Structures are given as structure tokens and as C-alpha cells.
């Protein structure tokens, strides 16, 4: 096969050998399918992502670049694949995703009706990230979420009722109505809060990991960040700190392709996995459509961190189904791109997988109906919640002595 005489031909050869479609390769590398297609079909073309492509395909980048002496060699460290999860766990992940989905769709309605103040950022289409990342976590493990943090909150164990109470600004809400959607937190279950500052959770989670470490606990902290947050310097500082101190910290990048109104390509010039590697931090990249894969991979990483291996990074590719915030008209986004998530819906995918394993449609319907009912009840309860008094908020600025 030494006849593959241009880069693209070699990419194609290796891709076919790996049993991947152009689309699948594109996704794992983080470029468009069109880019892969162009690369494969244009003699003389190259790609800034060649190293990444090589990694995904399990071949040497040298060989992709030059062809070298002949046969397509294998790299020593082929890309890791996630172990399969038992079916009951898959079902549980499915149920969690459905709960998050139903909660957010309800939130969207309640918001549109003017009952939720401020602005809310939904993770519809991205539930595979929240459910998968949180699945191996214990109650004493901690996680800092982004502004798009509903899924993480619910999956880490925040009470659905108090979640809605907070979104509606009620006194019984998670944050007594002082924080809202962008700050949902419940430290009692290890949820360190959504965060209004892009990247803000990174160092908070590092500090939480430090607390685990100082106490001699084997608990793990997780720092969630979006693809847009990759531009913030705090990421670099935190990677370095985590590597130097060998913190029990998992970096979890929720890459939904967009930072507000701009695609990730125009916001970040690197691949986060390569940046992490430079710090000696192992990283994996998974497709967020497949919640079982996210969960399994996260499970491996968290186990390794717990065992004292120091920080790790997981990047998860997802699709943002809706606007940056509710009400965003998304003029900057093509109709195709807006619809793309439907092909990648983690809930639909999970149903397919489970169906293949014998789960019947009725069970899906039940799950959804259950979730809808729970959500509807929570929304109702939230509506009946009491309004916070100014006096109590005013008295809540400083923690009292002994707190």
C-alpha cells in the first residue's frame, strides 16, 4: 500500500482500515466532515489537525505526513475505547437524561411565560455530558459546573423541587432565590454551583480537589468548562496547578461547538487534549451522543484519579440544540446546524441502544411520562413557593461567626 501518494489518500486508507466514516472521523477530530472530505480528495492538501487525525486513526503522524518507507504503521498507544456498561446502568443514565430534558423543556416554557426571571441557558441535546460525567461520582465527590449547569445539578443529585424553586426565585430555592439558573448549587451533594463567569469553575474545582487531598480523602473533584472557556487563561493556570500538585481533579470539557454566537474554530486554535498532554495530563475525547461511552470513560478516569494518578481530562463533543440563551434568535447559525443535533440526540441514541438490547418502547414511554409528571409537580410546587424577603437577603451577606 505504499502507493498512497498523497496525505489525503493515506488518511482515507487509515480511516477505512479503522472502520470509520468521514463524519465519525471529523467528529472525533473536531473538524467538519467537509474538511475531511476535502483533505482526502485533494492531492497536495494538508491539515493542521494531522496529529489529531493520526491519533484517532491509530497511525503515526509521520506516516500520514510523508508516507515514509511504506506500510501504514500502528502507533504504540491506540486510542482508548470505553468498556461496555451493564444494562441497568444504561437505563439509569437514560432516565437521568430524560429527567434533565423534561426539566429543561419545562423551564423553557415557564421562562417563555415570564415566570422565570433573568436568562437561562439550556443544555437540550447535551444531556449525555451531564449524565455521563456525573455517573461515577460519589456524593462526596465535587463538581463545578458552567453557566449551562442544569444538567450537572440535577444529575449530581440536587432536588428537582428546590431547583425549580430557585429558577422561579423562591425563598425555598437552592439559593433562596438569590442566585437563579446561573448559580444553582447544592454543596451538600457536592454541586459547587453553576457559574456566571466563563471558566470560573476551573479553579474552584481545583481548590475543592486540594481540600480532598489535604484531608486525605479519595474523593475526586470535577471542573466542567465549555469549548468557549478554553480561551480563558485560568484553564492554563489550573492545568498547571493540577499537574504540579497532582490534584484529584477531572477536567471535563463540554464542547458543544459554540461559544455564544461564534463557533469554536474561531475561538480556540488548539485541541485541548494536546494542551493537556503538554502538561502530562492524560486526556480522552468522547462523543457526547453516546452517554454510555461518556459514563464508562469517565468511570475509568475517575477510578484512576481516585487511585492517585493525578489529574485527567475528558473532552466530550455535543450539539447545542437551542440558542445560547432562551430567546436567542440564532441568526448567526444555519438551519442545518440548528437541526444537526437531532441526528446526535443522546436520548434517541440511548433508546436505540437499549432497544437493541431488548428494552421495549413502553419502558421509554413510562420513563418520559414519569419524568414529565415529576417535573410538572416540581414546577407547581415552585409556583407555590414563597417570595424571599428582602430583610433575609440583606442579612445574608456575611456568614455569621461559627458558620
Amino acid at each position, binding site marked *: 500500500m505504499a502507493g498512497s501518494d498523497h496525505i489525503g489518500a493515506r488518511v482515507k486508507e487509515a480511516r477505512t482500515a479503522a472502520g470509520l466514516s468521514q463524519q465519525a472521523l471529523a467528529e472525533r477530530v473536531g473538524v467538519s466532515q467537509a474538511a475531511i472530505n476535502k483533505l482526502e480528495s485533494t492531492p497536495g492538501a494538508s491539515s493542521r489537525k494531522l496529529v489529531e487525525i493520526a491519533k484517532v486513526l491509530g497511525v503515526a503522524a509521520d506516516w500520514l505526513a510523508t508516507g515514509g518507507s511504506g506500510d501504514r504503521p500502528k502507533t504504540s498507544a491506540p486510542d482508548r475505547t470505553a468498556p461496555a456498561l451493564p444494562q441497568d446502568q444504561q437505563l439509569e443514565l437514560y432516565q437521568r437524561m430524560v429527567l434533565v430534558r423534561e426539566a429543561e423543556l419545562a423551564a423553557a416554557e415557564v421562562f417563555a411565560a415570564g415566570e422565570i426571571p433573568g436568562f437561562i441557558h439550556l443544555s437540550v441535546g447535551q444531556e449525555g455530558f451531564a449524565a455521563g460525567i456525573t455517573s461515577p461520582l460519589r456524593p462526596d465527590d465535587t463538581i463545578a459546573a458552567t453557566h449551562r449547569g442544569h444538567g450537572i445539578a440535577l444529575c449530581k443529585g440536587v432536588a428537582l423541587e428546590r431547583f425549580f424553586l430557585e429558577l422561579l426565585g423562591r425563598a425555598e430555592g437552592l439559593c433562596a*432565590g438569590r442566585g437563579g439558573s446561573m448559580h444553582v448549587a447544592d454543596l451538600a451533594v457536592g454541586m459547587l454551583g453553576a457559574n456566571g463567569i466563563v471558566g470560573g469553575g476551573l479553579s474552584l474545582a481545583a481548590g475543592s480537589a486540594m481540600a480532598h487531598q489535604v484531608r486525605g480523602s479519595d474523593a475526586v473533584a470535577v471542573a466542567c468548562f465549555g469549548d468557549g472557556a478554553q480561551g480563558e487563561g485560568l484553564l492554563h493556570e489550573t492545568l498547571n496547578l493540577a499537574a504540579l500538585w497532582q490534584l484529584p481533579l477531572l477536567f471535563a470539557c463540554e464542547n458543544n461547538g459554540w461559544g455564544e454566537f*461564534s463557533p469554536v474554530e474561531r475561538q480556540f486554535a488548539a485541541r485541548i487534549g494536546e494542551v493537556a498532554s503538554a502538561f502530562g495530563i492524560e486526556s480522552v475525547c468522547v462523543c457526547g451522543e453516546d452517554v454510555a461511552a461518556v459514563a464508562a470513560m469517565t468511570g475509568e478516569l475517575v477510578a484512576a484519579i481516585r487511585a492517585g494518578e493525578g489529574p485527567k481530562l475528558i473532552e466530550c463533543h455535543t450539539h447545542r440544540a437551542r440558542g445560547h440563551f432562551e430567546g436567542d434568535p440564532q441568526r448567526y447559525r444555519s438551519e442545518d446546524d440548528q437541526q444537526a443535533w437531532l441526528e446526535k440526540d443522546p436520548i434517541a441514541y440511548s433508546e436505540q441502544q437499549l432497544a437493541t438490547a431488548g428494552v421495549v418502547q413502553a419502558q421509554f414511554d413510562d420513563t418520559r411520562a414519569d419524568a414529565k409528571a415529576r417535573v410538572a409537580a416540581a414546577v407547581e410546587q415552585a409556583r407555590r413557593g414563597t417570595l424571599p424577603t*428582602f430583610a433575609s437577603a440583606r442579612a445574608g451577606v456575611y456568614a455569621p461567626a461559627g458558620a
Partner: protein
Amino acid sequence: MTVAGVRFGKAIGTALADAMRADPAVVVLGEDIAEAGGSFGVTRGLLAEFGPLRVRDTPIAEAAIVGAATGAALGGLRPVVEIMFMDFLTLAMDALVNQAAKAWFMFGGQAPVPLVVRTPHGGGLNAGPQHSQCLEAWFAHIPGLKVVCPSDSASAYGLLRAAIDDPNPVIFVENKSLYAAAGELPEPAPSLPIGQARTARPGSDATVVTYGACVATALETADRLAQEGLDIEVLDLLSLQPWDEAAVLASLARTHRLVVFHEAVTAFGVGAEIVARMADVGFDELDAPLKRVGAPFMPVPFSRELEAAFQPNDVALEAALREVLA
């Protein structure tokens, strides 16, 4: 001629476009300001007219954005940066305070730093504790920086043109609640000198010193009190650093009673400096305690009721005025 119905945000956009037409050194940068036209739509249309070299979307990296803009200003450009929420200036304080503010002085006057940082402050959107702060007092405390805060479309246009022309770094503070407010814009609209206040309403019984979105509230309050025969002067500061001490003192010398009114937290806020100066240089004019009406000392709460109770309003201002007039 005067054009009516020009929104505050549009006036800012117009000032940017006019400045860019007038001087090829003017460049605009910030998060989502080019292709998307800005989170509040202020920079819409600039990319199409001036192209990607001069109108740049940045990554989410406030420190580097302001630092690079400072370097560009030292290199002869006149960058106008948008920082999406004033709360995010916390990430760019080194560039502003240690670099931009000091370069002219610290290098012995070698090269100016004609930098403008536009940023929205203020609440009212239930955007919560990290998206609502009014931090202008910080910048007013830093020698080398200027700080302005327009109150309507004409002052937004005029002050932004002046800020861009100014050879020093200027923090241009835009109250979010004003973006959609329509106002009159003269054509051609004049630049407004930095450091000059404006008498928004003359009066003889007491002075309200205010700025930004609070000016409108102060005027309403004054109108209401006028029905009782109380004649309130409203002074719109427009510039906070330098601020127009002479105008405030002159007003105090007429009314002998003064209240400072702003949305920022009262304690250690802009009003503290104004009152402190008047308690010194204006001491002989004082017929009543100097009062401040601002936000209570707490983060901006999220819920509708809490935020409404938090925000300083006409009721609080009226009460303070009645106290100084008692």
C-alpha cells in the same frame, strides 16, 4: 437638525462608525462584536463596513483582549474594546490598572494610550450577582484612567467620540437599562468634553448629583416634588473621573443641600468622593447633612422582588431629599 427616536445603543454604534470613518487607527474588538454585532447589538454593521482587520471577534479572554488593546494603543491604534459585562473587568484589571493607566506616566510621557473600554453596568435584568455590578468607583480611584457614564443618546454619542479622541485610557460605562431608550441626536452630533457635568434640570432648593440611568429617575422625582413647590436641581455628572467639582460646588452654593444618587453600592462608591469633597471645599455652603442614595451593601440579588427592593429608586431619593430639605 436633530433626529428623534435614536436609541442609546444605536447612538453608541453611530459614534463608533463615525470615529472609524474619521480615523483609520480606530479599531473595535471584543467577544462576539463582529459577526454577531455584540451581545447588546451595539456594534452591528461595523464588520461589514470596516472589515475584519479593524473589527475583531476575540476569544473569551478578557485579560488578553484589554492587554492587547493597550499594546495596540501604545503602537498608535485607537482601540475600542467591548467587555460584555462590567463584572468581567475583574479579569482585565492588570492590563487596565498596571499597564494602560500607568504607561504614559511611568515611561515619562513617551507615548499615549488612546484606549477605550466600553462596558455595561447595572441591574434590572435579574441577571444576578455576577452580571449586574456597578464598579466604576474602582476605576475612578486609579490615576491615569478616565471614567465616563452617559445618560442618554446624545451624551453617549458625544462622550464616546471624546473618549476615542482622548489620548488616555477611558472606561466608558453604559447602563444596560438604557440601551433601548430612545433619545434625540443632533446631526451632526457634537463631541462632549470629558470632565464637564450638565445641569439636567435647574433648581434652587436642593441639588441631586447623579449619572447614568439614574438621571432619568432623578428628573422624575424632581418633577414630582415640583408639584409641591420644591425646586430640585439635577446635575448629570457625565464624567466620573475627572468629575466636575466646580459645577457641583456651584450648585451647592446655590441650593446648600445636596444628595448624591447612583445605582452602585453606596459604601465606598462614587458618591463618597463627591460628598467628601463637598464636606471639605463646600463646607461653608452646607445647610443640611450631605446624603447619598445608592444600593445597600449586598450583592445584586437575582429574584425580581429582591432586585427591585435592592435597586435605589425614586422613593429612596425622595426620602433623602425630604430629609435634607427638612
